[in-house]
């Protein structure tokens, strides 16, 4: 997964209804880009039967010492 470009971010922000300038889009790309790269090894690898509520199941099961 690659980080988004400023041009892509500008388009996404427009669609979201919160337009940003080119300068802001560039800053956003620099700010959020490392998170895209950091999560890259996980993105696109998750098994099908997994949903956010799994977190609560695991949380309440806890780990056994």
């Amino acid at each position, binding site marked *: 997964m690659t980080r988004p470009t400023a041009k892509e971010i500008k388009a996404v922000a427009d669609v979201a209804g919160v337009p940003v300038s080119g300068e802001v889009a560039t800053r956003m790309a620099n700010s959020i880009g490392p998170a895209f790269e950091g999560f890259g090894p996980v993105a696109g690898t998750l098994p099908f039967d997994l949903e956010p509520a799994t977190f609560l199941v*695991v949380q309440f099961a806890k780990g056994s*010492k």
Partner: protein
Amino acid sequence: MSAEPALLSLSEVAHAIAQKRLSSREVTQSCLKRIADWQPRLNAFMTIEAEAALSAADDADAALAKGKSGGALHGVPLAHKDMYYDAGRVVTCGSRIRRDFVAASTSTALQRLKNAGTIRLGSLQMAEFAYGPTGHNSHYGPVHNPFAVDHITGGSSSGSGAAVAARLTFAALGSDTGGSIRMPAHFCGVTGLKTTYGLISRAGAMPLSQSLDTVGPLARSAEDCALLLGLMAGADPEDPTAAMGAVPDYAAATGQSLKGLRVGVPKAFYVDDLDSEVAEVLDNTVDIFKREGAQIVAVELPEQSQLTAACQLVLAVEAAAFHKRWLIERPQDYGPQVLMRLQNGLAIPGVLYLEAMRWRGSALAAHHAAVAGLDAVIAPVAPVAAPTIAESDIGNSPDAEAVIQRLTRFTRPINYLGLPALAIPAGATRAGLPVGMQLIGRSFEEAMLLRIGAAFQRATDFHQRLPALS
């Protein structure tokens, strides 16, 4: 007993009032005196409500004289981060946008403390909308570190950290979404408890990220945190994400020793690129744990940088969603850095956000497996002690987000996993700046962290260090 009531611990002052060795008025006056002395240097309070506090103290004293006690903290004056809704009062959330916002209801956490008899000293400063780890606030000015006023307090619970450290309040509510209790606890030399996600109701607490937000106390000791946690934890019909289980006796847990416990020290990530003085404090803390009978075990945790990235994605999207209306209607009313960080969330696709949410359960299971057999993991809260206000005043500069992410890299994985963590004062730099360590536990095992923290504090006096008013 201390000649200055404000210097007592929360537990001590509650007992002193209950036993009529001190009146609530005497205690409140003592706090107000210290607030008057320190506030010009710290900027820790958003509002100071001296007359109302003294009136409430008189009511508490009159009730006690008639044999009516309001609860475990009867007549104890406290102040909290200015994001806990208190019906009929202005709650600014550290923002210009909510400068005149009057809450219609009272937050569950605050109400439970009121039910225990606490009275209100005022409200405490914070980062704008709790979205900043340094303690800067472009609307209300930075909060200053009591141990070195040209240094930051950390945030976002900046006023809470400073006010507890300077003994202006016995304890304070904070909130922790990416480190906002533990950072000020570390930088200001106080004890701060980031609770398991869902342990304390979030109802009536200003939201930042509904999947990551947690409510918790900053106080002078683990024992005081245990007292507060016991009062606030538990199911709440107003917050469906609040845990339904029975509330353990946290205070009882604090009386036990470290003997026989197994504490993990990460082999990587949390020990990488540490400032040398923070590394020394970690080594010294480990030595104290050994001396007190704990077994230290090197532990290999799953890849933490992926957790920090996932946390950033979730936080950015959820914060942007909460703020979207104001981002459209009132962008000029945000501080530059908060506006920049909120805008970041617009750039993250929905599928990526949901992948970060879907992975959370697997990541937590992997963490629990890695720490099997351990009672807690110890790690630094941050790689450095408090930077100066000037050097960390990064605003919306191009590298601002990178600086923020470096500062909070040891706290965000814990928020993503929803785990509890107790930040405890563990030493100081040669320049006198506090250094804290965080004890990280399994989900809902706050009692173990409080036990370890309290045992450490019986063996050390870092938590008793007082800043000097010079």
